[in-house]
């Protein structure tokens, strides 16, 4: 036995790791669900799923590799008459390597894997949102609502920027938006819409001529520019645009004075609205003024101020939609209030946290009911933004006052002042832990679980399950180390004779080894879960921690004793 055990184990370990990673990646690619994720995400999803599977089954793969390596360590013939090396020297480097690998495992399991799980959940959510945008875009195009179609496609392309068909559809929708005559006409199916052609430009030029004849220079300028956008070679359209610009610039002094007076009145009205607290009304008024008076400093200043005021009580829908595409926590469910008088349950489909502690919420639903089960109110809201200790749910359109989204009351009544506000008890950090799925807890670090465990019970989460999850996470690195040592002892005690080559049948049956190891290691972990669950529920977390720690020390000692009991002959 001329080589240390470590020199035999490491290549085998790496080979098993590589084969397992490749197999999991292949599995993830083959089982990729095109209904669950966008096709463009195939490789990203496959990589992440493969990594998660790799981490989930790393212990059996590792155990199998260690056992195989240890059982093949005596293949090399010892020199004739050479004394056997002391077994402690044979395995010391391997045990040290196991400690390092355990540390690496802990870092991967506690640091990288939770983030990967969260990111995978994000990709699933984004795929769902993008599919919804695609459906909206298709419906809007078939209904001839080209502006809505373009908006939906733009949102879709943020998630899937390389989708050629959607890019093509966007060109179609954008060109149709510049042709108001066609704006309300039902359009052909997206795939069948032809590219913009000279006929469209000709129609715009004719409209521009018509409005120029009417001396409506604003409209004439608009259609001439639209024609140039469709066909830059149209010199006649450029001519009309130029003429319209000159005419607009050449208004008479009287006309200019009248316009200035009118603008002043409008500005004063808008300012009155702002000062009286109608920030949203003032915003739209200044916005309308800004469209015709782009260089007016007052309008620009008050528009910005009104927008700022608007965002104290509401937010812009486009901002919410943009944030919705960012990674976040999903499926949050909790009791916001639970006292003798009433219970308030809240469900949030997604929460996106922003730098600086801000947070956005999507697809909110809340219900308040009393001890008799009578519902005081029940509402849904598509968007919400955290403002202090509350969620604002008043979403306003940046340009169209009609497109305001308020909570939809399904049952009961709420005071008008509170209609778009929900007071929130949990912090953002606590909300992250209240996601209804293993992903949430799997995405939390053990210190986070420890910090939040006391308060989470008040929000409807069973503390026991959190404690069990936390304890099991602490057990995993020990399981990794103990099984490493045990499998070394097992492999060594079942090693082949010195100098023998691997039997062909053994090589053929080798893939069964990780399967057996998986069965055994999963049983080992399940036994731990039963013990931990029993201790946590029956005797509390502190007792459970102490007993489990003692158990790990005992198991490690037994494993080391078994390893030490092996002979190097």
């Amino acid at each position, binding site marked *: 036995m001329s080589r240390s055990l470590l020199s035999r184990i490491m290549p085998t370990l790496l080979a098993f790791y590589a084969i397992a990673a490749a197999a999991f990646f292949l599995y993830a690619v083959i089982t990729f669900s095109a209904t669950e994720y966008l096709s463009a995400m195939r490789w990203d999803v496959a990589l992440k799923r493969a990594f998660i599977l790799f981490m989930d089954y790393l212990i059996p793969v590792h155990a199998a590799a260690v056992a195989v390596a240890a059982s093949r360590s005596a293949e090399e013939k010892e020199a004739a008459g050479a004394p056997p090396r002391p077994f402690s020297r044979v395995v010391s480097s391997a045990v040290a390597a196991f400690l390092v690998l355990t540390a690496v495992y802990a870092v991967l399991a506690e640091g990288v894997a939770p983030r990967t799980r969260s990111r995978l959940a994000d990709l699933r959510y984004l795929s769902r949102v993008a599919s919804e945008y695609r459906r909206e875009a298709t419906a809007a195009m078939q209904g001839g609502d080209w502006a809505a179609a373009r908006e939906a496609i733009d949102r879709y392309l943020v998630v899937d920027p390389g989708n050629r068909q959607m890019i093509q559809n966007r060109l179609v929708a954008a060109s149709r938006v510049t042709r108001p005559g066609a704006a309300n006409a039902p359009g052909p199916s997206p795939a069948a819409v032809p590219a913009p052609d000279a006929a469209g430009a000709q129609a715009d030029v004719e409209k521009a001529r018509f409005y120029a004849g009417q001396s409506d220079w604003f409209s004439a300028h608009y259609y001439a520019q639209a024609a140039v956008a469709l066909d830059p070679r149209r010199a006649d359209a450029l001519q009309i645009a130029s003429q319209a610009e000159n005419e607009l610039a050449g208004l008479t002094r009287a006309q200019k004075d009248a316009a200035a007076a009118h603008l002043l009145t409008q500005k004063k009205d808008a300012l009155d609205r702002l000062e009286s607290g109608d920030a949203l009304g003032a915003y739209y008024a200044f916005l309308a003024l800004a469209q015709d008076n782009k260089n007016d400093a007052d309008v620009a200043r008050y528009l910005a101020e009104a927008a700022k005021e608007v965002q104290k009580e509401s937010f812009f829908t486009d901002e919410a939609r943009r944030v919705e595409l960012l990674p976040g926590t999903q499926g949050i469910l909790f009791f916001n209030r639970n006292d003798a008088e009433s219970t308030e349950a809240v*469900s949030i489909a997604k929460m996106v946290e922003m730098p600086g502690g801000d947070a956005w919420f999507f697809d909110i639903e809340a219900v308040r009911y009393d001890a008799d089960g009578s519902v005081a109110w029940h509402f849904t809201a598509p968007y919400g933004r955290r403002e202090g200790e509350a969620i604002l749910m008043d979403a306003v359109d940046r340009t169209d006052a009609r497109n305001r989204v308020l909570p939809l009351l399904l049952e009961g009544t709420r005071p008008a002042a509170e209609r778009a506000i929900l007071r929130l008890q949990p912090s953002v950090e606590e909300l992250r832990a209240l996601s209804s799925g293993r992903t949430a*807890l799997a995405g939390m670090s053990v210190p986070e679980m420890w910090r939040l465990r006391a308060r989470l019970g008040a929000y409807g989460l*069973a503390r026991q399950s959190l404690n069990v999850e936390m304890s099991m996470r602490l057990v995993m690195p020990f399981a990794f180390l103990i099984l490493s040592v045990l499998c070394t002892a097992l492999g060594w005690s079942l090693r082949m004779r010195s100098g023998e080559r691997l039997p062909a049948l053994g090589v053929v049956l080798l893939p069964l080894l990780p399967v057996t190891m998986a069965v055994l290691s999963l049983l080992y972990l399940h036994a731990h879960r039963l013990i931990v669950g*029993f201790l946590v529920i029956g005797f509390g977390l502190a007792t459970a921690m102490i007993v489990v720690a003692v158990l790990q020390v005992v198991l490690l000692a037994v494993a080391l004793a078994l390893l030490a009991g092996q*002979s190097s002959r």
Partner: protein
Amino acid sequence: MKEPLKIPFVFLFLLLCTSVVCAVLDSVSAWGLSGSAGGRFTLLFAAQHLPRSLYDVLVPSVVLSIVLLGLRIARRQISRFLAFVIVLGVGYVVLVNGMLWIRPLVGAPPAAPSPRQFLAPSTFARVGDRLVAVRSLTEGRARAVLIYDASTTPRFTVVPAADATVHAGTLTLTSEGPRALTVSGAPDLTWTSVFAADRFTELFLRDIRTMSADFQHLLAAARGEFFVAAFALVFLCTASLMLLRLTRWPLINVMLLGIAARGWFSLYHFLAVSVAPQVSRALTDSFAARMAPSLAFLALGVLFLLVDILFLPPNRPGSEISG
């Protein structure tokens, strides 16, 4: 003492160890799943439940003990035939007598857990695909029941009251009146199950439950068939020990035996749940259906025995193994 004489005692020792470990795990799991709502774990509960746990885990413990005993036999120079006869005899006697002796101690099957076990006030509990929370629960009557279903719009439903029952592992909440609805499914303490096994282990446990339940049923209803079934199982497990001499690589042999032992439980589940009903329909004879798994086990055992006699050397890797 000569090695063959030690075998029965070693087997009993292994059986004692495996039975105690499995029974303890079964007891704590049973307490967590059905008794923890009643308060802290007590020795009285453990004492009352231990015979039931031993009864439930005896079959897998015997199988595991035969496998572990096989590892010892493979390292010793013992006649194949003698080892086979001793393991078969001792395994069969212990399994049959163990079940016969423990059965009177078991008493009535455990009562179904109360709904309180799963519905702690103001805590979300999973029932099937939905989450449920109740404000209060008194004698099976839940008040102010909140139901959360992520697949519907709206997701929340509140009903003033509902009757809660647990039957055959299924929790059912039934409300009447204008919002009459029924929520039914496997209950869970919360969305992160405390005692839930991963899916592979759960399949293994399911297979073990199928085999144990069948053996217990046969013991109660048809003792002759129970003797045959017990013999078939022990015969197949003993014959499987030939896998320990299949190749020159001991590790592979041991792992092969491990996966085979796991496979026998799956095979039994498949035969009992999928094949037996078809046999029963085809032959219109329930006896043949009940015996189908045992006959298959016997046939497989004979096949293993023939392979052992005809193709395998008597003690290939054992003499060299150290440790």
